[in-house]
């Protein structure tokens, strides 16, 4: 456990090695370094996890300070790492899923020219993400936070010859900047009021120094949440995530589904003490989460690009996690974060496998009938789809059910949240099965050229799919709720991290409604989901020929949803265009006329002065001597007369 500082440093070493020398390495060397460093991280994470398990539950919080980073008066930030149940879960998910995606990328990127560049960025991402989740203070967390943002930008724009890819990268970076601005302000406010950026100090002192529900703690948590909204793609800053699908598919799986976008959820869970002190913020978090979950799910309904459906699904699922945080069920949020990492990474990798087989085709309208051609991809994606839809016995069921139950029963929850959550679950099942039916079932809709290249992906890609499929099934059983004869082990494991927050919020563990209500709600959710799956089957499998008619049957609603509520256009109109126009105005008027005018004018003045004065240099030596004499007489005269 003393080796936790190595967990982020090993991928960092891989990044340096591949980044500096990658051009001269052969591909096997590059991927050995890249995958090997992440594998070492994963093994170290496992070691740390089991080391943590050996400790008593109360003492499961280990800090390791590598060195003092910014000692400046009362401000102090260390490069220090914190291992507790929350960060242990996060490093396992990040390094585990990351490792599988690294291995998958070996196959997926095999023929790409930027092979070493890709793995260099990927390793830098792993290092940043692990720093983010392991940091023991806000400032180091911010370093990781910005690091993953940078890698996200670099990897979205990985194919930089494509205009749309570089635009998407810029969009992601700029939109995230708004969130990061809030995050930085939140950190500053906390330092200003509490006088520390160290997690344990802040969370110890906050309940004493700040008023419960007071303005400062509310402002600080709202600012931190703004950071989470940007990073985790919640309304209104979600617009970058669908465009981020321009990046290579393993990147979408790793960064924009499994790990980076969940950083916001992790941060909120990490600051649970602060959030529990600010009920107003909790309400905001829950509402933003629920709204995002529902809103993104509706957009996902009728998208035709396979990756975009998954992108909106990710936004929607992240919304669920924030609902959990908003109703003070942080454990449920992290639980869903973990299961989501498994099945969403699997879905993206599966989609990547399909795209790979289809020679780059992403439009589901030109797929169809791939079930027999891509059996492994089909089976694993079906498992992930069942998991995300919340079918019993699959991991997504347990985590989603836990969130819905908490949304209903928690003192911060309400039945209304549950109803919207239920609707969202139904929509999720619908669009996911629409994806499955359009892609794998029905008539083939691709041309012969694509068909001639169509074959199942190589082992290096399918084996990670299978491992993730297994995890998507069994991943939920670690958090089996008491109502289903489980021990809710996952929540117990995380409990020490959230205990203090629960104390502040006066949450009694295990209290609430009887199991009967829980069963009833569970049953209702499952029934609704199954109905929605059959609806999808009816319109996309049984009556596949009329599915377009079915979609267009919604009229204006279909157009609105299909065009993503015209939000991008709206943002362009009210934010981007005025900014561009204003900047142009400032450039052409203020910069060119006033700023440049000032400096050019000063230079012009000096020039004019010089032009008039240079006539003095006549080249006539005798006139110089004469001026000399005049000067000498003047000086001597002055000296004499002034005595």
């Amino acid at each position, binding site marked *: 456990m003393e080796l936790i500082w190595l967990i982020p440093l090993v991928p960092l070493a891989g990044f340096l090695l591949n980044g500096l020398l990658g051009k001269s390495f052969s591909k096997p060397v590059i991927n050995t370094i890249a995958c090997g460093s992440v594998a070492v991280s994963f093994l170290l994470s496992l070691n740390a996890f089991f080391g943590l398990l050996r400790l008593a539950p109360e003492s499961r919080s280990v800090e390791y300070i590598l060195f003092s980073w910014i000692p400046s008066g009362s401000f102090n930030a260390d490069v220090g790492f914190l291992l507790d149940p929350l960060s242990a879960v996060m490093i396992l998910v990040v390094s585990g899923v990351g490792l599988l995606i690294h291995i998958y990328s070996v196959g997926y990127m095999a023929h790409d020219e930027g092979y070493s560049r890709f793995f260099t960025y990927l390793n830098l991402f792993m290092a940043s993400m692990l720093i983010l989740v392991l940091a023991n203070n806000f400032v180091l967390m911010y370093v990781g936070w910005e690091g993953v943002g940078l890698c996200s930008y670099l990897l979205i724009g990985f194919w930089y010859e494509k205009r749309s890819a570089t635009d998407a990268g810029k969009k992601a970076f700029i939109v995230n900047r708004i969130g990061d601005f809030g995050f930085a302000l939140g950190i500053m406010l906390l330092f200003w009021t509490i006088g520390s950026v160290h997690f344990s100090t802040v969370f110890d002192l906050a309940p004493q120094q700040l008023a419960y529900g007071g303005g400062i703690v509310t402002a600080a948590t709202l600012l931190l949440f703004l950071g989470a909204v940007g990073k985790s793609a919640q309304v209104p800053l979600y617009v970058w995530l669908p465009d981020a699908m321009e990046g290579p598919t393993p990147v979408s799986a790793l960064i924009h589904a499994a790990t980076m976008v969940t950083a916001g959820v992790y941060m909120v869970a990490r600051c649970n003490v602060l959030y529990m002190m600010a009920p107003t913020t909790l309400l905001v978090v829950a509402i933003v989460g629920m709204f995002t979950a529902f809103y993104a799910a509706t957009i996902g309904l009728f998208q035709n690009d396979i990756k975009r459906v998954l992108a909106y699904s990710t936004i929607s699922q992240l919304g669920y996690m924030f609902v959990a945080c908003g109703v003070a069920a942080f454990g449920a949020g992290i639980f869903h974060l973990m299961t989501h990492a498994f099945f969403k990474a699997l879905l993206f990798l599966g989609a990547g496998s399909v795209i790979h087989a289809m020679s780059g085709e992403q439009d589901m309208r030109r797929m169809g009938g791939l079930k027999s051609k891509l059996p492994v991809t089909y089976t694993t994606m079906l498992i992930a789809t069942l998991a995300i839809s919340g079918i019993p016995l699959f991991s997504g069921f347990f985590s989603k059910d836990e969130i819905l139950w908490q949304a209903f029963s928690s003192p911060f929850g309400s039945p209304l949240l549950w109803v919207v959550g239920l609707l969202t679950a139904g929509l999720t099942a619908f669009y996911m099965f629409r994806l499955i039916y359009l892609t794998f079932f029905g008539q083939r809709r691709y041309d012969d050229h694509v068909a001639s290249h169509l074959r199942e992906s190589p082992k290096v890609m399918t084996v990670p799919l299978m491992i993730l499929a297994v995890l998507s099934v069994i991943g939920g059983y670690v958090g089996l709720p008491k109502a289903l004869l489980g021990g809710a082990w996952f929540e117990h494991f995380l409990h020490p991290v959230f205990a203090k927050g629960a104390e502040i919020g006066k949450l009694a563990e295990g209290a609430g409604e009887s199991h009967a209500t829980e069963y009833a709600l569970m049953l209702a959710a499952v029934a609704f989901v199954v109905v929605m799956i059959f609806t999808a089957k009816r319109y996309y499998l049984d009556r596949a020929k009329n599915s377009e008619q079915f979609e267009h049957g919604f009229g204006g609603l279909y157009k609105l949803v299909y065009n993503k509520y015209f939000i991008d256009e709206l943002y362009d109109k009210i934010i981007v265009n005025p900014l561009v126009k204003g900047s142009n105005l400032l450039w052409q008027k203020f910069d060119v006329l006033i700023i440049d005018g000032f400096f050019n004018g000063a230079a012009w003045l000096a020039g004019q002065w010089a032009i008039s004065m240079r006539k003095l*240099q*006549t*080249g*006539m030596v*005798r006139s110089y*001597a004469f001026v000399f*004499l005049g000067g000498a007489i003047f000086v001597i005269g002055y000296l004499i007369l002034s005595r």
Partner: protein
Amino acid sequence: MVPLEYYLVVAGIIFTIGMIGVIVARNIIIIFMAIELMLNAANLAMIAFSRNLGSMGGHVMVFMIMTVAAAEAAVGLSIIIALFRNRDSANIDEVNLMKW
């Protein structure tokens, strides 16, 4: 004994002649000689003060100036010869390339 003022007046007259020579003359050789006049006017004033004050400093200074003047004459004359070879003229007003 001749009073100090006499020496100074003579030195001042010689210096003024030299100075006017530098400004008025066009021939480089004449300017050159006028400069020598000015130097020797200064020498004369030095010696006069030195003798009047009973100090050796002025004498030393004069030796220094004479050495420098000798070196200056060597360099200056060679420049003048080089110039004359190029221009076939010793008129200072024709050497005016270094201007705006």
